[in-house]
């Protein structure tokens, strides 16, 4: 399904004078940041390229920029008449005329489809309108069917220039969908496109977890009447039963090197956190209390595991070393904190906590300080998981009635549903970037 397409990337050095010093455009680590207005003129269709293709590329592009939460997109449809029909990449000297558009940044581009109808070229340039200078120019070449991926590369690059870090537009999110009495696993692109059903076994399938290499998804299923751990390819093929000890084999979490899986196992009479190796064997018990243990989540450096334990009397977030030693409690507020997810940046853990009967998403420093609530007055919000760059959190929310996957910036801003589906979605898991 995902093919590594032959991508030709070329930097376009032109007559524009590159800047020697980088202006700080957007410090997205601030608790609240003002979105940068970005002007996006109409894209040009080169030669015989169908204009519909350029329109499509533009649509994906503008949507990506909006979804990122970093930009306020000034779409060409909303430009003053004098600028509305200007297509393609402006010459440096003409940057001035874009000032009335109200943007600080300008992103211009063109699409070019080969006469063979198969090879697509996307070319873009990014300008700083305030300082009247060129920032970057690139060209991507690939198969027409990879249009979306290629546009996502463009917007990832724009995010890199403006925020200092590449975007996550080329990522996917796996989640479960309730269908009658079954739960099936689905995958969607970051922008809600390409929604695909991965499992079709009409059983109860839970807790999808992407392998670090993005090739397989681990999940728990009741196919054989016991909650066993399975692996499946993204195209829904090669289903294999990975761990089937009696009792629970649930809530998998991959080590960053992909060589081990931490999971919940019940073979000793209650749920504990175990490690199993790449073949699903050598189960090693990590937790040693009398409590019920759940939801392991590995740290990005592979040295620690966050998990839920009710050993204190109520479910709380704990952290232990990857060998089960050095257990310490992280959450102390309220009496129901579950679903920890360790940020890829390593410094914070997201979780959901119940206060007054309602679940909300929180993040907390790994030392237990700096508790921050990210959702409020919006139904029940659960199962947080981070984007690979640690700047977004996906979670499930029933604020619109039925449970749906939502995405927000890590500061809680720009909360929006992932897909346009009717709902009953839960348990999101975010993939790595697909390049």
């Amino acid at each position, binding site marked *: 399904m995902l093919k590594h397409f032959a991508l030709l990337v070329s930097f376009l050095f032109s007559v524009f004078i590159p800047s020697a010093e980088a202006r700080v455009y957007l410090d997205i680590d601030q608790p609240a940041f003002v979105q940068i207005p970005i002007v996006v003129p109409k894209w040009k269709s080169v030669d015989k390229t169908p204009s519909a293709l350029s329109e499509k590329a533009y649509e994906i592009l503008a949507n990506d920029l909006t979804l990122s939460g970093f930009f306020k997109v000034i779409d060409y449809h909303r430009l003053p008449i004098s600028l509305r029909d200007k297509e393609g990449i402006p010459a440096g000297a003409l940057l001035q005329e874009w000032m009335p558009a109200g943007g600080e940044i300008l992103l211009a581009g063109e699409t070019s489809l080969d006469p063979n109808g198969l090879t697509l070229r996307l070319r873009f340039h990014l300008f700083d309108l305030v300082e009247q200078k060129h920032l970057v120019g690139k060209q991507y070449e690939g198969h027409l069917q990879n249009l979306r991926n290629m546009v996502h590369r463009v917007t990832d690059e724009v995010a890199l220039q403006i925020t200092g870090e590449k975007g996550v537009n080329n990522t996917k999110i796996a989640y479960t969908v*309730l269908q*009658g*009495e*079954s739960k099936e696993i689905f995958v969607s692109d970051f922008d809600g496109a390409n929604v695909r059903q991965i499992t079709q*076994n*009409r*059983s*109860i399938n*839970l*807790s999808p977890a992407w392998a670090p290499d993005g090739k397989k998804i681990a999940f728990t299923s*009741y*196919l*054989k*009447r*016991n*909650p066993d751990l399975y692996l499946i390819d993204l195209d829904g093929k090669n289903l294999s039963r990975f761990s089937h000890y*009696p*009792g*629970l084999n*649930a*809530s998998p979490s991959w080590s960053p090197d992909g060589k081990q899986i931490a999971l*919940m196992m*019940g073979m000793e*009479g*209650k*749920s504990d956190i175990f490690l199993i190796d790449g073949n699903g064997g050598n189960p090693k018990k990590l937790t040693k209390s009398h409590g*019920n*243990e*759940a*939801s392991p989540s590995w740290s990005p450096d592979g040295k620690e595991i966050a998990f*839920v334990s*009710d050993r204190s009397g*109520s*479910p709380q977030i704990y952290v232990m070393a990857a060998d089960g030693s050095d257990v310490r409690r992280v959450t102390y507020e309220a009496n*129901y904190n*579950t*679903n920890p997810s360790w940020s890829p940046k390593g410094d914070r853990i997201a979780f*959901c906590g119940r206060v007054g009967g309602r*679940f909300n998403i929180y993040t907390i420093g790994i030392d237990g300080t700096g508790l921050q609530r990210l959702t409020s007055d919006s139904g029940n919000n*659960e*199962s947080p998981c981070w984007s690979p760059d640690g700047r977004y959190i996906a979670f499930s929310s029933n604020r619109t009635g039925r449970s749906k996957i939502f995405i927000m910036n890590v500061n809680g801003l720009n909360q929006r549903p992932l897909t346009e589906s009717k709902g009953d979605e*839960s*348990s999101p898991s975010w993939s790595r970037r697909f390049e």
Partner: protein
Amino acid sequence: MVKKSLGLFILILSIGLIMMGCPKKTVVKEEPSVAKSEEARRLEAERAEKEAKEAKERELAKIREEEAKKAQEKEFERSLVAKKTPGIEGEVFESSLLKDIHFDFDKYDIRPGDAEILKENAALLSKFPKIKIQVEGHCDERGTVEYNLALGERRANSAEASHLPRHCCRSHLHDQLWKREAFRSGS
């Protein structure tokens, strides 16, 4: 009646003994054996009759018991409703004769009143040693999925730990959590 014949027997015996005291021997000597065997035969006949009667009663009781058992089995069978879960292997039935127990929110210890229910369920199930029993530990959707799985595991084990298999608390929504099977069949 036994006593009477015993008394009679003793009397006859004593008469025989007294008669034995006289110098006349042979005739007197034979009398008690004859009386004895007659009496013995009579006793035996009585006993046999009694035994036959008792045996018949036992057989009747046995038949009645078997019928009762069959009736109970039929009632149990009739109470079985197939639980349809297309995506899960195997056939499962539920019986309205087996009662659910409930757990307090976020708890997994058996409540005092529920112990009685479990005993009743066990009593019923013990009559059917050949069937396989599956214990389910459920949780409702007020909690979060994975922690609920842990609770469900513990609840099912909690019920099992009392050595009595049974169904556990009811699930409010479709999030049914199956537990491993508890084998009770001899085969």
